[in-house]
């Protein structure tokens, strides 16, 4: 067990090292992309360029710059933005994490619960009108772009019908800290949660339905029927349980990516200043320290998400447990 955790940890360090080097090299080694020129702005004189270069340490060897940057992220935590001088990067990331986590965790709970229900109901009533309806709705959810859906949600809940009884509770856009105002935190996130979850409910519901129907063809389902078990029990204890593997795999990938910043569009639409938004802005400005910090953060979460998925695998499927 300890060995497995250490291995994961080593893996995480390796991934972080690799990604940071790649990001670093892309930034500095891309031909024609002199960071000093970018920072100094158009029409800067040679003296200004030189000053910027010296000021930011660009005249030192690359590996020294790399080590310095890593030290500033992980040890001293005082890395500052290239664009917005004096803006400390690490606290900025730390401030954004709760926003993204709140958004993604809430949406994930919603989509897992709803899609499991949809998957089971559709599989149990397969080829009926209910199954067809659920699958059509799922397809609709998959086909709606999240930024469009978000805007429509805002249009309905924030302006058009905001004054109707149905949506008057919806607070203005923005994020409220859970510790300051738990109720406000919840209320501001309800609509973003639903918006983000709809896409995944569609995908996961369809995937689970297909996996359950495949499981129902297995020999052990026939054995379960021969045992005289009820259809409900066969579905829930035997077919669903063996179908969750595909579901968990997908979940690990999506969840890791979302926490890592893929929830950008939802964050932008709902005015949530999360990691996605932070990364996006940093990329716009080619702000290396910020990009580096968000990428490091994202890789930690992707590796943790993978570790959790592997752990759930082992819980779900005893064949993966060794000895």
């Amino acid at each position, binding site marked *: 067990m300890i060995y497995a955790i250490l291995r994961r940890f080593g893996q995480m360090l390796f991934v972080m090292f690799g990604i940071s080097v790649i990001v670093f090299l892309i930034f500095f080694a891309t031909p024609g992309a002199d960071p000093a020129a970018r920072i100094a702005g158009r029409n800067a004189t040679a003296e200004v360029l030189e000053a910027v270069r010296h000021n930011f340490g660009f005249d030192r060897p690359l590996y020294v710059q790399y080590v310095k940057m890593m030290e500033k992220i992980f040890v001293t935590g005082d890395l500052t933005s290239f664009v917005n001088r004096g803006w400390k990067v690490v606290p900025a990331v730390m401030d954004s994490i709760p926003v993204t986590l709140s958004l993604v965790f809430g949406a994930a709970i919603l989509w897992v619960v709803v899609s499991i229900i949809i998957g089971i109901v559709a599989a149990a009533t397969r080829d009926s009108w209910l199954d067809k309806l659920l699958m059509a709705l799922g397809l609709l959810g998959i086909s709606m772009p999240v930024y469009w859906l978000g805007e429509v949600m805002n249009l309905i809940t924030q302006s058009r019908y905001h004054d109707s009884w149905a949506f008057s509770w919806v607070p203005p856009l923005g994020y409220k800290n859970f510790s300051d105002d738990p109720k406000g935190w919840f209320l501001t996130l309800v609509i973003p949660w639903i918006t983000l979850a709809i896409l995944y409910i569609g995908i996961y519901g369809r995937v689970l339905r297909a996996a359950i129907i495949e499981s129902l063809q297995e020999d052990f389902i026939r054995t379960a029927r021969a045992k*005289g078990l009820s259809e409900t029990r066969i579905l829930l204890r035997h077919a669903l349980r063996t179908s969750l593997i595909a579901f968990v795999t997908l979940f690990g990938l999506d969840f890791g990516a979302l926490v890592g910043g893929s929830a950008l569009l939802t964050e932008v639409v709902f005015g949530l200043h999360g990691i996605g938004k932070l990364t996006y802005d940093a990329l716009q400005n080619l702000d290396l320290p910020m990009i580096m910090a968000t990428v490091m953060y994202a890789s930690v979460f992707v590796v943790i998400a993978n570790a959790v998925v592997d752990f759930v695998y082992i819980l779900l499927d005893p064949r993966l447990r060794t000895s």
Partner: protein
Amino acid sequence: MILSVRDLKVSFRTNDGLVRAIDGVSFDLEESEILGVVGESGSGKTVSLLAVMGLITDPNASIEGSIRYKGRELVGLPARELRRLRGNEIAMIFQDPMTALTPVYTIGWQIAEQIRAHQNISKAKAMVRVEELLAEVNFPNPHEAMSRYPHQLSGGMRQRAVIAMALSCNPALLVADEPTTALDVTVQAGILDLVRKLRATHKSAVVFITHDMGVVSELADRVMVMYAGRVVERGSRMELFSDPRHPYTRALLGSIPPLTGEKPRRLPAIPGSPPSLLRLPQGCAFGPRCPVHYEPCVTDRPELGIGTHAAACFRVAQA
């Protein structure tokens, strides 16, 4: 009488037309009797027993005829009632022990699940019973085996676990569908021994489906030979093996290479292959492969006739 099947017909609607998998099968089974059902693929041996178990779930299937279990009609019985019998009074052992158990639960859990589906007892009591059952089917360490997952056991041990599960509610009728086909002969010998022993201790009647004449001759009290969805010959083990009457039974027995004595230079083989159920010949289904067929075989279908030893063949009726 445990089981009485009369004129059972099972057909499936397919894109290529109606497939009559079973066409008029009748047989009886007495208490603690072993009936061997022999046939090749497509002979309908498995389908007929799935029908008895009420396990044909295909919506395109239609089942006609009568299946009486202890005098009670099973065809058309509501699913709920049927479920109460299944696993409790009628149990089944399947062909492939590798896939017959749910991979994510322990052996003990799966057996206890069946017990608790039919008896109102505590989990702890069910587990005690599971341990007894595993000991009965010769698990060397039954207590430890309870907490094993299917993939941790060999094929033979898995099949023993499946048998223990089938026996868990003391069924009056045990249906075994080629339970040893996927196993090595050495393991098969142990399983056959076990079935014999359990018939004696549990007094279960057994329907044993197989394609292996040798297995049937070692195990069965009575034998039923099936071909293309119909019974072509039935009789006691002695009658059938010492005096096979139907040309198909004879040819099948003749084509088995001997294990002792002189080797024949060539095996007496049956020409052709079993017919497709979609394109059955009009008369006797075995006719085109039969060495002794004559005019009546082409147009008419021979009936099985009555009596303990009977064959569905015009030549036999003639003799």
